[in-house]
């Protein structure tokens, strides 16, 4: 773990008495390695460590009898601060329905997360309606329908195979039938696919969507900054769902995504079942990233 590595680094330098700038430099190197191994983007790491170094050269660390622990605490606190200090909630419109659109790269877990969110909202006493605008992927509409049946929660369907029109029809239906939330599943797409990114802008606009959630895979590596930044630039994200945290990926992509878009992580996916959705806790993920 990072704290073990830092203790070791500082123990080796112990012969020099109190911790010095050289000790801090060595510690920064360990921290940089740990963050890169955890998949934090290398540019984000550089900035993060630079800011950290300034603080680590402060009184608290230099005067401490246990500088190693002091530095570990500093890193953790800085990570938690960056990841968003406190849990961040879904925002609901004063006048329902609130439209929540799930977006992201192919295979990240959007359709499954749509079901998870519907279940979550329903347990909170709200009335969600789900709709899929994925007219491309084989059996995507079947997938959401089957999820709705498994959860005993409604899924809007129509004859239309135009994603923007589907969104519009679903929104009208949800308003007329008094649903609180419309959960809109979208097709996976590359951030560099201009036509599909334009389609997403149109869907968002159609719904004057309150929440646009980037569904991102926790095992994503360096590319997380590229896709997240572009999704944010094109359609302005309001939140992130980080999926597949039941695996052993360290999840450094979360830090990259947060740093590059400023968007709060609102939920995490921790399994394939529909109950496997949790509110995001920055301190838990900070510990995991540090390893």
């Amino acid at each position, binding site marked *: 773990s990072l704290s073990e590595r830092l203790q070791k680094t500082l123990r080796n330098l112990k012969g020099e008495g109190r911790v010095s700038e050289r000790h801090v430099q060595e510690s920064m190197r360990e921290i940089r*390695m740990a963050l*890169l*191994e*955890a*998949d934090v983007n*290398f540019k984000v790491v550089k900035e993060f460590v630079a800011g950290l170094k300034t603080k680590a050269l402060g009184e608290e660390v230099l005067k401490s009898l246990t500088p190693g622990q002091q530095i570990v605490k500093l890193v953790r606190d800085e990570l938690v601060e960056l990841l968003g200090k406190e849990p961040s909630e879904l925002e609901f419109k004063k006048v329902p329905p609130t439209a929540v659109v799930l977006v992201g*790269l*192919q*295979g*990240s*877990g959007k*359709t499954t997360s749509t079901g998870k969110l519907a279940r979550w909202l329903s347990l909170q006493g709200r009335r969600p309606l789900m709709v899929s605008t994925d007219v*491309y*992927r*084989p*059996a*995507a509409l*079947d*997938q959401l*329908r*089957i*999820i709705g049946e*498994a959860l005993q929660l409604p899924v809007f369907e129509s004859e239309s195979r135009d994603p923007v029109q589907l969104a519009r029809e679903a929104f009208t239906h949800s308003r007329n039938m008094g649903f609180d939330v419309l959960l809109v599943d979208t097709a996976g797409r*590359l*951030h*560099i696919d201009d036509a599909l990114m334009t389609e997403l802008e149109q869907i968002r606009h159609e719904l004057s969507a309150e929440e646009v959630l980037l569904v991102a*895979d926790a*095992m*994503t*590596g*360096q*590319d*997380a900054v*590229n*896709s997240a930044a572009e999704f944010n630039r094109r359609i302005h994200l309001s939140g992130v769902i980080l999926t*597949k945290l*039941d*695996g*052993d*990926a*360290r999840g*450094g*992509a979360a830090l990259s995504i947060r740093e590059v878009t400023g968007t709060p992580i609102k939920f995490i996916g921790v399994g*394939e079942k529909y109950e496997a959705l949790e509110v995001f806790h920055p301190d838990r993920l900070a510990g995991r990233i540090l390893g």
Partner: protein
Amino acid sequence: GSSESPVTPEQIEELEAILLGADVGVQTTLEIVGKIEDETRGNRFVTSHQVKRLIREELHRILDNSGSAEESGNGERPQVVFVVGVNGVGKTTTIGKLAHLYKSEGKSVSFSASDTFRAAAIEQICIWGERTGCQVIRQEQGSDPAAVLFDAIAASRAQNVDVLIVDTAGRIHTKHNLMQELEKMRRVAAREIEAAPHEIFLVLDATTGQNGLIQAREFLRSSGITGLIVTKLDGTAKGGIIVAITKELSIPIRYIGVGETVEDLLPFDPTVFVETIL
């Protein structure tokens, strides 16, 4: 960098930006930097051009034997091909692409719909079956994946099908019961046809970071892997984790996925791959 090496800190930073940014990973990047420093020791200086050339040579040294193995057809029918990997990486879509490729080579192909867990997984592989003209052997959602495999082998054998491709559920490698389920499927295939499964392809998503190396280690250890397929290389991710995987495990990289249609599968070409990293 070391004190006698002519590689400047700026050059090292540039080198790290290329390699780290491509998901090559810290350890492998350090090893490549170390190698370049060794090779240029004693030079007065080294140009950026030389640095790039040395990276290219080192990457090729690691990757060049990775695509070369021929698929191990041994005349048995059907050849059984498992497609495995963690959730959402592109297994089912890749199976459609593989079927298209095999059929273009004059082979007959059938599918085993052995993802019996996920919503609409069976419907999804059936659509790929329709698109490619391949029979899909299936049961209901919730049935035993190994039982579907058993039926699929029997049906494919009876009809003299050349290749049976087995779709499997996405599974996180830390889930012991799911890895056991895969190993059970491997034993069922081996019991029915000697030398089956003839191929076990691990599908990796090009956007995956360091966890890709752990996935490869675990799937290799648990049920064996005969080849890698890296998908979603049509995006901006470089898939550099396969450099670390090849270095450590020497699993041949067979194909890459470059899109969502049936034709978007290419044989792995180390030269093209290295050039996109640089």
